[in-house]
Every structure is written in structure tokens, then in C-alpha cells.
């Protein structure tokens, strides 16, 4: 007899799902029984949060929808942080959760939680399927909503009686999804595009501020062609790293709280800001009143609600970044004369390079630089959250989109290791490295178990300073060095790795860094590197909270 569970598996196969990250439990037994001899690969994680992050990492690395599966109650609740992470960064995942039988809904039944209610604020949409006849349609809609428009997570809650009851036969699945309440705009308005091009032709100091929307839209080639044709410098957000090659002469690196000096000065002095696939996040803008104070603002985004949300916009363009940039390229007649501006920016770049005290000590920035030098952009770099994330963003040279995977909006510690697992299944051809801190790696360290079980060749680079480093940095700078609950006792990560059957190396000297990274990358399976770095190293430059982004501390001048 074909059941709801079988219907679900077939619907997932129709959506092209090849991998599910999950954790079994009572009410999902019927689904797991169908998975047992299905062609879909299931990766058993050690905690449901990791299933959601792995689905997210899979989606970011591949551009396809990631899928995770958990049981009702605690299983579903454990997904929430992962779903919220995906929501904040507009990542397409579909989360499948078991639910108590429909007859027990609302009864405080064993392992019941109102997961559609709980996830309403952190999903693009969610469904509680009460009738097996709706399953095909709901799964199809869920994937459609997740991947189209501004992507995002969709949750589908599946009561046990729906997955066990006989499938309703004769139902045909429509070719396309049509939702009267959901019709995203892809093509930009031509008159607005021409208005923007007119500003571009007249601008003397134009700047492109590009974000995650460029990566999500697959618009890297278009952005590169446009910036080169129009000779406009580009700064990217944390989420936009890799959208264009980091070593491109027109690339200024990251802007914002830990942005480069040249990027933040360029924003402050530009007369035209082309904001592409960005949302003027507070970590980017600093004090919003002083962000790009002299600039006319053009904002391209697929989500109309982002336009004008934080910053007043002169030319709003609602549409898919790729489609709009293609229209820019087609319709551009004249470019502005930006030679003086570009030369001013080059002066800044030469005058204010990124830097740290490169002495004989083992400093975290050096580790990231060596990693960058060895991989040369040919790998996927995942990070945790905190200083490790910012040093990686600043000192690793990203060259291609979807090679940088990090939790930007939510800033989820513990994201990196499970996301790296997901990234591996999306791109088994690429080396995957998780750059971690000793704090965040311990938030999902149980995933060493998953890595070991499936021999996933993820390399974990721990920048171990025995502190919750970013919080310690704020305490040092703004709380008079009162290190309140930010010191962590030393942990022997190599021993932990070994206990799971994973190889590892502890590195305490600068001399050992490059060799250790090469050894890890040359090893077939997973590898853990425990770098004992300078404990009180800070991430600089830095814009203090509430300051304008050109008011940086910890700056260097050549």
C-alpha cells in the first residue's frame, strides 16, 4: 500500500532532492522506513540543529534547496536556530518535521510542539499538512517558495497519521506552481533602470555596494562585466564576499564595522551609491545618518520591503539582481569619468592596507593568510562566528561565489562545522575548510561524530585563543578589560578528534602553520588543526557601535 510517507519521498525525488540531513524519532518512523531503501541519501547528524545548518550549507554551496528532517517536539525545536540562520541570510531550505497525529493536535501530547507557530517569524512560509491529499501540492509549493523570489526557509509539519494513511490516488501534480498571493518581480522597471544609468553617466565618484543578493541571484559574471565596463569600484558586504574576485583592482574588500579603511572612506566620499542585493544592515552602515552622506542612492533588490527600510533611496529598482544588471549592460550608453576617483581609491588602498603585527608569534591572521595562499580560492571556506569569522573575511582572498559560507545576519556560533558537512555533499569535488574559534567549535562539536561516521573530508582549523574572543575584544575596548565570563579553559581538541577517530595536529609555533595546513589538506579524510594563537589579538579596523563608518579605531597607515 502506498502511504503518505511514500508520497512524500516521491515528491522529494521529483524536486531533485539527493541528500537529506536528519535525525529520527517516534513520529517520523514511517518516513524513515521509506528512506531505508530509497535512492535519497540520508546523513545522520548528532543534533537536529546540525541538520538544519547542514541543509543550509548544502544550499549555499550548491545554489539548490537544502533539506533537513527531524521528529516532533524537541527534534523540531532543535531545528529553530538553524532555520532562523537560513532566514536571516535568505537561504533556501525545506525543513520537514514530524508531528503528533492530527487527532492529538493541541492536546499537549507526548513530544508535541506547535512548530508552525514557533517558526512563523523565522520562515518564509510554513505548512501543517492535515490531509494526505494535500501532500504533493504542499511539497511542490514549499520548494517553489524556498527557491524563488527572495529565497528562504520553508517548514512542512507532517502529523504521523498523514504519513501512515493510504495515499489518495489519481492526484496529478501540476507542472507549475501558481500562488495568487506570491508573485515575485524579476525584471526591473525600465524607466527606473534608465534613471539609474543617467546617474551613473553623470557621477564622478560612484561606488558599488554589493551583497549576498548578488551570490543568491548568480549574478557574479554580470556584476564583473558591469563594474569593468562602467569603471566603478566595488565594496562587498560579509555575505557578498566572493561575488567578485577579492584581488580585482576595482575591489575594495569588505565595508562596515570591520571593513577596510579604503572601503569605508569610499562609502563616505562617494557621490553615487549603487546598492545591489544588500539590506543596509546596521553592521554595515554604522550610524545610518552618516552612511554615504554625499551620495544619491540606487537600490536594486528583489524584495520591495528592503527598499527604503533603513536608508532613503533615490532610485528604487525592484527585481532580480541578475536580470537588472543584464538590463544595465544592454541599456548603458555612456559611462562617467571615474579616473580621478579610481586613482584616489588606489591611493587609499596603498596607504591603508590591512595589517597586523607580523612578528615571530603565532597570530590568527597569519593562519588565515597561509590558508588563502595555499588554496588560492580553490576551496570552500566555512566559518563559525566571532573573531575567526572576521579574520577569515578580511585575510582570505575569495575569488568565486559560493566559496564562502558564513552565518551573517543571525551570527550563529556553532554554524560552521555542520554547514561544512552540508557544503561537502553539495560540492564533493572541492576541499572544505571550517575556520573556527575554540568557543564556537564547542557549540556543535558533537558533529565530529557525523564527520567520522561518513569519513567527510572536512578540515577544521581552530584559532584557539582560550577566550570567547570577540566578546573579550569588546570587554577590552569598552568595558575596561573586565573579562566577565569570556575565558575558556584549555581544551585538547586533537584528543577530542582522536576519540572520534579523526586525525589532528596541535600547532604552537608560527613555523609549523603552513606545513600543518598542507598535511591536513593532503589527508584524505577529516582533519582537525588546533592552532594556539596569540590570546589577546583583536580584529581591526573596527567601527565602535553607534559611530560613523569612517570613524575607525585600530587603523594602520603606511
Amino acid at each position: 500500500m502506498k502511504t503518505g510517507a511514500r508520497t512524500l519521498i516521491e515528491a522529494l525525488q521529483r524536486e531533485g532532492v539527493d541528500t537529506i540531513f536528519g535525525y529520527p524519532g517516534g513520529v517520523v518512523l514511517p518516513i524513515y522506513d521509506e528512506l531505508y531503501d530509497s535512492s535519497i541519501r540520508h546523513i545522520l547528524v548528532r543534533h537536529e540543529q546540525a541538520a538544519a545548518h547542514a541543509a543550509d550549507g548544502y544550499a549555499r554551496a550548491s545554489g539548490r534547496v537544502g533539506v533537513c528532517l527531524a521528529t516532533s517536539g524537541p527534534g523540531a525545536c532543535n531545528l529553530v536556530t538553524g532555520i532562523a540562520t537560513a532566514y536571516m541570510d535568505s537561504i533556501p531550505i525545506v525543513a520537514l518535521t514530524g508531528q503528533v497525529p492530527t487527532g492529538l493536535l493541541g492536546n499537549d501530547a507526548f513530544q508535541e510542539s506547535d512548530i508552525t507557530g514557533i517558526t512563523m517569524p523565522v520562515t518564509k512560509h510554513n505548512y501543517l499538512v492535515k490531509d494526505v491529499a494535500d501532500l504533493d501540492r504542499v511539497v511542490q509549493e514549499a520548494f517553489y517558495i524556498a527557491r524563488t523570489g527572495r529565497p528562504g526557509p520553508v517548514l512542512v509539519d507532517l502529523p504521523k497519521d498523514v504519513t501512515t494513511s493510504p495515499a489518495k490516488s489519481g492526484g496529478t501534480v501540476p507542472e507549475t506552481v501558481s500562488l495568487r498571493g506570491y508573485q515575485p518581480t524579476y525584471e526591473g522597471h525600465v524607466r527606473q533602470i534608465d534613471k539609474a544609468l543617467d546617474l551613473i553617466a553623470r557621477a564622478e565618484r560612484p561606488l558599488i555596494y554589493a551583497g549576498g543578493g548578488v551570490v543568491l541571484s548568480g549574478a557574479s559574471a554580470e556584476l564583473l562585466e558591469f563594474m569593468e565596463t562602467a569603471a566603478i569600484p566595488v565594496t562587498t558586504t560579509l555575505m557578498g564576499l566572493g561575488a567578485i574576485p577579492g584581488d580585482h583592482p576595482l575591489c575594495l574588500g569588505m565595508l562596515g564595522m570591520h571593513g577596510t579603511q579604503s572601503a569605508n572612506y569610499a562609502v563616505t566620499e562617494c557621490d553615487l551609491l549603487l546598492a545591489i542585493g544588500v539590506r543596509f544592515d546596521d553592521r554595515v552602515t554604522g550610524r545610518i545618518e552618516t552612511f554615504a552622506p554625499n551620495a544619491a542612492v540606487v537600490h536594486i533588490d528583489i524584495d520591495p520591503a528592503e527598499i527604503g527600510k533603513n536608508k532613503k533611496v533615490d532610485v528604487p529598482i525592484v527585481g532580480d539582481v541578475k536580470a537588472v544588471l543584464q538590463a544595465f549592460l544592454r541599456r548603458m550608453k555612456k559611462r562617467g569619468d571615474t579616473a580621478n576617483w579610481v586613482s584616489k581609491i588606489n591611493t587609499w588602498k596603498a596607504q591603508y592596507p590591512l595589517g597586523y603585527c607580523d612578528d615571530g608569534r603565532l597570530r590568527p591572521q597569519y593562519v588565515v593568510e597561509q590558508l588563502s595562499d595555499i588554496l588560492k580560492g580553490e576551496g570552500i571556506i566555512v566559518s563559525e562566528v566571532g573573531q575567526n569569522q572576521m579574520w577569515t573575511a578580511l585575510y582570505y582572498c575569495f575569488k568565486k561565489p559560493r566559496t564562502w559560507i558564513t552565518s551573517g545576519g543571525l551570527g550563529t556560533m556553532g554554524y560552521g562545522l555542520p554547514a561544512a558537512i552540508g557544503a561537502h555533499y553539495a560540492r564533493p569535488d572541492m576541499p572544505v575548510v571550517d575556520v573556527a574559534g575554540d568557543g564556537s567549535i564547542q557549540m556543535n562539536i558533537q558533529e565530529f561524530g557525523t564527520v567520522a561516521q561518513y569519513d567527510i573530508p572536512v578540515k577544521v582549523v581552530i584559532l584557539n585563543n582560550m577566550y570567547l574572543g570577540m566578546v573579550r575584544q569588546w570587554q577590552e575596548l569598552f568595558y575596561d578589560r573586565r573579562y566577565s565570563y569570556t575565558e575558556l579553559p584549555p581544551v585538547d581538541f586533537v584528543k577530542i578528534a582522536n576519540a572520534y577517530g579523526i586525525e589532528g595536529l596541535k600547532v604552537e609555533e608560527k613555523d609549523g602553520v603552513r606545513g600543518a595546513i598542507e598535511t591536513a589538506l593532503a589527508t584524505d579524510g577529516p582533519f582537525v588543526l588546533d592552532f594556539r594563537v596569540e590570546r589577546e589579538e583583536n580584529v581591526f579596523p573596527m567601527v565602535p557601535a553607534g559611530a560613523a563608518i569612517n570613524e575607525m579605531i585600530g587603523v594602520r597607515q603606511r
Partner: protein
Amino acid sequence: MKQHTLSVLVENRAGVLSRVAGMFSRRGFNIESLAVGTCEEPNMSRITIVVNGDDGVVEQMMKQTNKLIDVIKVSDLTARESVKRELALIKVAAETGAARAEILQIADIFRALVVDVGAKTLVLQVTGDTGKIDALETLLRQYGIKELVRTGKIALLRGAKTVKSSK
């Protein structure tokens, strides 16, 4: 800050009201009143929401509401010619004959209906715009209002124009 009346056409599905109301509260938008019910389309409902905010805030409210998958159309009726009505039921103390006579007179002026007569109370039903109901409430307070309930505002565009599905 100006008062705006938003007309929101939604799918008539479980949880829709919760999605709309939840989005307003988590984004810190205050709802003055909200009325929801079925409408001319069989599978849709119409929600009328009254909010206070400057134009930028109200624009954000409308855009964020529109993003909800179950929301079909959002319109701001404020600047357009529309009919706006509320209904209130007011239970007022009427223990003496004199009070009772005065209340009935006031009700007559406001074209309110007496829908229940008790030994010590009257229940009045009044419809109208917010100001009219506020005025009646103020006048009746001297007699002692025992209980009061208001529906929240509902509104329709005047003339042939409609707020229909076109999103």
C-alpha cells in the same frame, strides 16, 4: 503620525490572522483596531487594520504584510474616498426613570438601537465612524457604562472601485 486604514485581502486559511498579527507585533507596529471576516470571494477573507504611523512606517507595514504568502492584496484606503464604519454595543446603567428617558433620547439622536432592556440596564447598538461612537460613549459615561464592546473599523472604497486580487 497619521491614522491609516489598511484593507488586506487574504487567503481564508487557518493561521492567516496569526501570521498578519504576529508580523505586526514582532516588527513593533501598533494596531489600533483589526476586524476580520469573510468577503465576496469564497476562499478569501478581508482584514481591515487601523494603524498609526508616519508614511514611511506605514509603507513598511504594507510591504511586510504583502510579503506574507497568504496575503493577496494590501491597500491603504486613507487617502481615498471610502466608507468607514464601526459597530459598538454599550450596556449602560438605567436605574431611574429619568436616566432611562435621557438615555433613550440620546440614543435617538445618535440613531442607536436599543437591543436589550433590563430592569437596571439598557444595551444600545450604534454604528458609525469612530468619532461618532466616541462621542456617544462620552455622553453615556455619566449614567455609568457597565460594559462596552467595539468591532474595530471596517471600510470599503466608494463608487465602483474595489480592492481585488491582482498581486
